[in-house]
């Protein structure tokens, strides 16, 4: 277990004072992001597995402001988030030691649990997950239970690191991540409206999508800001769900790295990533390819312009009636 050993090495050598990683839970899938302060702690409960889905980037905002150096393990996705947050001056780069970890995809615990009811433990054996359940052993194909974001992985490249465990991967321009967006665009406006009503009406405004989102790291969110008069707490009217999700997607447009955390954590399984991907796709098409978090210098499309940009009248969210 390379990752765990690296964590132990970093702590015991005194190179870092803390390590940000994932902690063993009750079962195989309920890993919790945690800060480890000693090699013993790591030894006892540090876990890295395809079930370590949580993106740790956002925690670095607070961790990098504490005393001492904190090490973090970054999957490719997470590295984009970290670099974006460095770009926005949110993470203090000098206080973090970044260890890149190649990734072959993370598992959707809900999908896994559906395929293995009563799941208690899991082992990986060459692309197959061998599951212990309350109702006996069950074998599940890893590729069948990957999170959506991993099925359409945009990049296996780790864009920022101080050290790399294994080989760095490549961007995947062949990713089909926009296919679902296109599918919705091909619906009629009425069908699109019906689709999103169906999805968004399940929203319970638990704010998990926002609070997990590395781009949503505002000191105070406009939707919590009573002074601004834009706060709202629960979807008292269906307008509010739309209001919240449209504005949230707009606020992260050009900053969203498409890490997929919003959809991963949604308790109601709303495909929120589609909103972000719509913006990404539009920006790519209208203003040129842009990947948030890919570098620290480029100007995001929302903070840039060209004299010959298209007119808003050309804006199309999909097929017209």
């Amino acid at each position, binding site marked *: 277990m390379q990752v765990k050993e690296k964590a132990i090495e970093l702590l015991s050598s005194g190179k870092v004072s803390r390590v940000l990683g994932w902690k063993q839970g009750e079962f195989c899938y*309920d890993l919790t992001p945690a800060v480890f302060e000693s090699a013993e702690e790591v030894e006892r409960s540090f876990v890295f597995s395809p079930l370590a889905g949580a993106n740790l980037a956002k925690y670095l905002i607070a961790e990098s402001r504490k005393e001492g150096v904190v090490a973090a393990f970054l999957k490719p996705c997470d590295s984009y988030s970290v670099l974006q947050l460095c770009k926005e001056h949110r993470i203090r780069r000098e206080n973090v030691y970044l260890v890149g970890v190649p990734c072959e995809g993370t598992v959707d615990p809900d999908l896994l649990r559906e395929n293995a009811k009563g799941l208690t433990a899991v082992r990986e054996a060459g692309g197959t997950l061998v599951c212990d359940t309350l109702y006996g052993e069950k074998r599940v194909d890893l590729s069948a239970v990957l999170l959506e974001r991993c099925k359409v992985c945009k990049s296996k490249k780790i864009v920022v690191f101080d050290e790399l465990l294994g080989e760095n991967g490549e961007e995947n321009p062949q990713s089909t991540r926009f296919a679902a967006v296109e599918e919705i665009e091909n619906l009629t406006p009425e069908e699109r409206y019906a689709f999103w009503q169906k999805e968004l009406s399940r929203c319970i405004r*638990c704010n998990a999508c926002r609070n997990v989102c590395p781009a949503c790291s505002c000191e105070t969110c406009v939707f919590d800001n009573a002074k601004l008069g834009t706060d709202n*707490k629960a979807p008292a009217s269906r307008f509010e769900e739309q209001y919240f999700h449209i504005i949230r997607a707009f606020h992260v447009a050009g900053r969203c790295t498409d890490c997929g955390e919003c959809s991963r954590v949604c308790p109601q399984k709303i495909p929120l990533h589609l909103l972000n991907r719509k913006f990404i796709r539009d920006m790519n098409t209208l203003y040129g390819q842009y990947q948030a978090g890919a570098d620290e210098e480029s100007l995001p499309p929302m903070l840039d312009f060209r004299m010959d940009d298209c007119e808003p009248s050309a804006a199309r969210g999909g097929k017209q009636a």
Partner: protein
Amino acid sequence: MKKIEKARLPELFAALNETAALYLPADRDGVAAFTRWQEGVTLTEKLNTVRSAKDLFFPQVETLANFKTQGGTIEIEDAARQDEDFIVFGVRACDLRSFEILDRVFLAEPQDTFYKARREHAAIITLACNAPEETCFCTAFSIDAADPQGDVTAFLTDTALCLRANTEKGENLLAKLPLSDGAESEIAAWQKQARETLEKLPIQLDLSGFTGERMMELFNHPAWQPLSEACLGCGTCTFVCPTCQCYDVKDFKTKDGVQRFRCWDSCMYSDFTMMSAGQPRPTQKERFRQRFMHKLVYYPMNNEGIFSCVGCGRCLQKCPIHMNIVKVAKTLGGERDA
């Protein structure tokens, strides 16, 4: 004991719906939720709903009053209470226990008349469990998931749905349904097997350390810091929890006045109980501690030792960072002998 063949469930639901509006757990786009029955709505295969049955008695948003301004006058209009009967089918044992917990809050004086009206107008048909998931830990609260109560108890075997009335309301209800007679013995084996599975559930919690005497010790426990470290401060646990009952009262400015409504709130939120002097619990650690202290210590202290958790496991499944009451209880409770 009455029964109906499994294949005739649609017929049963239609008949139930004839007597009063029927709600049952059904799949909505892959997510199980209590749904108003209509032709074509079928019972979910899933063990439980994402949102609990609490929603039907304490909805996420509820209008309390309307204030209408006309010229210089303000007219106050009280919001309507539930005045029609309704039936909730498929309540699991855990959710049923949550009603008891909520009753102790909302039906204590001063009574919450909105909640009370809904409770009075509802008939509850529980559904016994025989295939719990690994996240279930109702046994820790002495809940018999294989034999819940309610007005009527339903048992879904391989072939039939067996129904047993527990109250007069339940008796009256069953009398109106196209059921055949059955015997208790028909479900005995089913129940035995269910209980065997329930006994083997992986989460075994010993909650004996959570007592009023240890309140301050638990409150000041150093483990709150690491436990709450990863908490995002979202409201997922709160909103899927069948026993969380906090709400905020807010005013919405309408065209010609103000709509006063209440909506669920979460003690995990940074703006929870925000006052002019600020948030009484300034950091996430304090908010996090509040939620679990309330469930495991404060509520039982005020309510004859009843924990305000029912072991439904929803928070175990839904917390974005997989922190939950089981991890908290094991961490804090584990040291009671030390």
